[in-house]
């Protein structure tokens, strides 16, 4: 199938024939931060490869992996990734970096103070018991999965009146939360990247129960050439220089890093 890919390139004529392409499918939350674009440049130059970044919901991203329309995945839903590999669609997952989920809510919300020092699951309990508006992604994404596990841990039902499932990407969900003066669970990266447009603030800071791990999942049965590139991409993100780049990513813009690496 690598020859077929070559054919397509020469047909489209919009790239040089020698340039190889790899389709990396990721989730919207990672794409929205602009992180991939900035870090992939080095890889593209080093290996003379073009990386096509396609951002989709986690579910669709995994489906694309199953249908082999994706050559490699960069996602954050540990359980689903492991299932994906167990079912034989993936070869391996490499944890590249992590950040945290936070709970955000309306700026200067009356209840914000009361939630500040609670544990994550107690924050959820508080929200449910006070029927505060809450926006859930509702799309079975990594964030949504995390949210559901927190509801379970808190022991309260999430079907209170002001609980809204919207089935949207992270940034769009935050938009809605801002507009509706509602609470939401978000990864810190997306929040920092879009907070200028939002009337939201963090009400529950990161803690270890809210860790959000991003990993690269390699796909099985790739053709030889693609496998080489795909492995190279994993190595690239694991390499010291890129890990350093990750650690510093966002510091200049947001005053704090968007991601942490495992040291």
């Amino acid at each position, binding site marked *: 199938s690598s020859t077929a890919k070559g054919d397509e390139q020469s047909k489209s004529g919009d790239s040089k024939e020698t340039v190889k392409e790899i389709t990396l499918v990721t989730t919207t939350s990672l794409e929205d931060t602009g992180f991939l674009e900035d870090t992939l440049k080095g890889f593209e130059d080093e290996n003379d490869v073009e990386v096509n970044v396609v951002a989709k919901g986690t579910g669709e991203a995994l489906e694309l992996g199953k249908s082999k329309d994706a050559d490699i995945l960069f996602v954050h839903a540990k359980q689903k990734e492991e299932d994906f590999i167990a079912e034989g669609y993936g070869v391996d997952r490499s944890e590249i970096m992590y950040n945290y989920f936070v709970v955000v809510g309306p700026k200067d919300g009356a209840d914000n103070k009361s939630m500040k020092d609670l544990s994550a699951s107690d924050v959820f309990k508080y929200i449910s018991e006070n029927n505060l508006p809450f926006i859930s992604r509702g799309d079975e994404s990594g964030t949504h999965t995390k949210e559901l596990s927190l509801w379970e841990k808190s022991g309260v039902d999430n079907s209170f009146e002001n609980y*809204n499932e919207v089935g949207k990407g992270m940034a769009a969900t935050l938009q809605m939360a801002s*507009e*509706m003066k509602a609470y939401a669970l978000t990864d810190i990266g997306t929040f920092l990247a879009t907070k200028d447009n939002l009337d939201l603030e963090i009400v529950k800071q990161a803690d270890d129960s809210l860790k959000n791990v991003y990993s690269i999942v390699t796909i099985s049965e790739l053709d030889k050439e693609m496998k080489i590139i795909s492995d190279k991409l994993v190595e690239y993100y694991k390499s010291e220089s890129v890990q350093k780049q990750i650690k510093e990513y966002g510091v200049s813009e947001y005053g704090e890093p968007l991601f942490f690496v495992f040291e």
Partner: protein
Amino acid sequence: MEIIEVIQIVIRSLYITITATAIATITGTLLSILIYLKEFKLKRQIIMIINSLMSTPPVIMGLIVFLILSRKGPLGEFQLLFSSYAMILAQVLLLIPIAMSLTLEYLNKCGDEILITCKVLQINKKDIAKIFLKEIKNYLIIVIITTFGRGISEVGAVMLVGGNIRGKTMVMTTYIAQSTSMGNFDESLMIAAILILISFMSTFFIKSLQKDS
């Protein structure tokens, strides 16, 4: 998703698009007839602009409605964002130029003859519009089908201003978009089948209103 929820979504979609189509075709047709009948400066230019607005991406109409209805916008106090009103409003804005373009094109072709007949019958200025409405009735069917089709199949604007809130503003297209993004292609195709069935039935119904001409 349960069948009862699917039915709710279908009914909500129909309610929103039928309302928007009705408002858009009625105002659109009336406006077009007025524009056709009146001579005024910039008439050609205005028609051109209406034609161009046909290509406005729905998400832009959505964005405009969003900015108007958002808390910081002029109508923010009414808190209409993420409601079916907002969705209807966005669709109306989207559909009016379509209804108008199609009607104007028709009048351009057949209007002169109707106008001369009106003059022979010595019909009042204001009744002339009525006659045009009457004469245009059969053509209206295709206008309605086209605008309804565009409305019911639109996703960008209703997603933005409706918010796709489950049980509240989720409509067929936003549901399809969501389940597609979740990789549930089977579910998407099922809803799509329902949507096509509905549009088949509504086309059939609308067409059956069209008398032999």
